């Protein structure tokens, strides 16, 4: 696993994660460094991408109430930023996932307001999707890296593995 900060490395990866932070800051950085198009191509080529929190916002098709030119638009969802409120309204909550309770951490988190027909909802909180999958693109509203339970990281790694298996089979 490596941290990618510049253009030119990404095409050699098997899967990438766009982490949390501020989507406005990350979006500008990606464009400036020429990584915006690289990520778009990466996703269009069927390679797995996970976006968490700000990363999910950047993968989405639209942000309610905002004019954005930095959305990669690989995931057919529409989100609302800081939907629960400010940091004061950030929270932890146990959500049910695959027959266990998972402690999800939401920090100034986005809410997925609309999902396209091909988007599979993996987990929900408060009747709203918090983990989604569309083909090779995965998005979480929460921060899996802040929880001890690594089940959501496993989920993404499995997506990467199955994609690698598929590529191998296609070669043969």
């Amino acid at each position, binding site marked *: 696993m490596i941290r990618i*900060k*510049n253009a030119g490395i990404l095409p050699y990866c098997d899967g990438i994660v766009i982490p*949390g*932070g*501020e989507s*406005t*800051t990350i979006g*500008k*950085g990606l464009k*400036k*460094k020429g990584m915006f198009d690289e990520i778009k191509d990466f996703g269009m080529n069927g390679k797995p991408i996970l976006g968490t*929190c*700000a990363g999910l916002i950047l993968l989405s098709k639209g942000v309610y109430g*905002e004019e954005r030119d930095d959305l990669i638009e690989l995931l057919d969802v529409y989100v609302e*930023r*800081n939907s629960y*409120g*400010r*940091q*004061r*309204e*950030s*929270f*932890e*909550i*146990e*959500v*049910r996932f695959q027959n266990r309770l998972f402690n999800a*951490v939401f*920090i*100034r988190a986005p809410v997925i307001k609309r999902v396209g027909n091909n988007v599979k909802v993996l987990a929900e*909180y*408060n009747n709203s999707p918090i983990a989604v999958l569309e083909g090779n693109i995965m998005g979480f509203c929460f*921060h899996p890296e*802040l929880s001890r339970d690594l089940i959501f990281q496993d989920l993404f790694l499995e997506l990467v593995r199955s994609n690698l298996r598929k590529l191998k089979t296609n070669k043969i």
Partner: protein
Amino acid sequence: MDKKLESLRYGTDLIKLGFAKMQKGGVIMDVVNEKQAIIAENAGAIAVMALHAVPADIRKAGGVARMADPAIIEEIMNAVTIPVMAKVRIGHFAEAEILEALGVDMIDESEVLTPADESHIDKKRFKVPFVCGARNLGEALRRIDEGAAMIRTKGEAGTGDVKEAVRHFKAIMGEIRSLKGKTNEELKDVAYKINAPFEIVKETAILQRLPVVNFAAGGIATPADAALMMKLGADGVFVGSGIFKSENPQKMAEAIVEAVESYDDPKRLLEVSKRLGEPMKGIDIESLSDKEMLQTRGF
């Protein structure tokens, strides 16, 4: 009522530390009005610090420096989507309660304002995360023990002279390195000497870094200054007067954001350092008397 809702938890340590982590690799900029806040957001700031005056002006004005008018902070909160932080005086927990009620995303218990007490705020009883200044490991770990979710160097705010930030950052990092390989007895001795709790000293020794996010602040005025602090190991930087006291704030803001992202790429740093106009004029710290130093506030 949905049973799940009962376990909804706000303002936990994880939520506070998690927020601070999201600031990593970013630039937090001092702003005094909506217009500046929007410039900062457009330049790619990860957050803004809402103030009534930047530190250089606070220094010039003299007198008692207090929490900004909450109306100014509120205007800034309404103008941008990125997190908004604000400063309170050291020990002034009533100012902190007011800012928590306002809903700022993080509070800076800051030596830039006139201290209200010799003791610092008990930050653990707040739901809002705090950032505090430090000049050495002892100060940093005492603040963390009090509940700070982020540490920043004090540097010497409002001077545009990065020297003190460098000194404080190197002091902290050096002290952390010196903990390596020490036995529990030796760490207890260190804890006693630097007046910090043993448990946090031990955690720092094992992690070989502060247990919370560690930013640089105080006197950062150019992209090169910001890159310097990142190279020394900072998780991100605060820029106070350096942006809006420069000739071309927008360019300076963008350049510093890029310098923090590309601090290990001298070619990019070269590009972003060109034609920025005059940086803030600044004050050589050597010309300040001990009385004029802000960094000695707090302990």
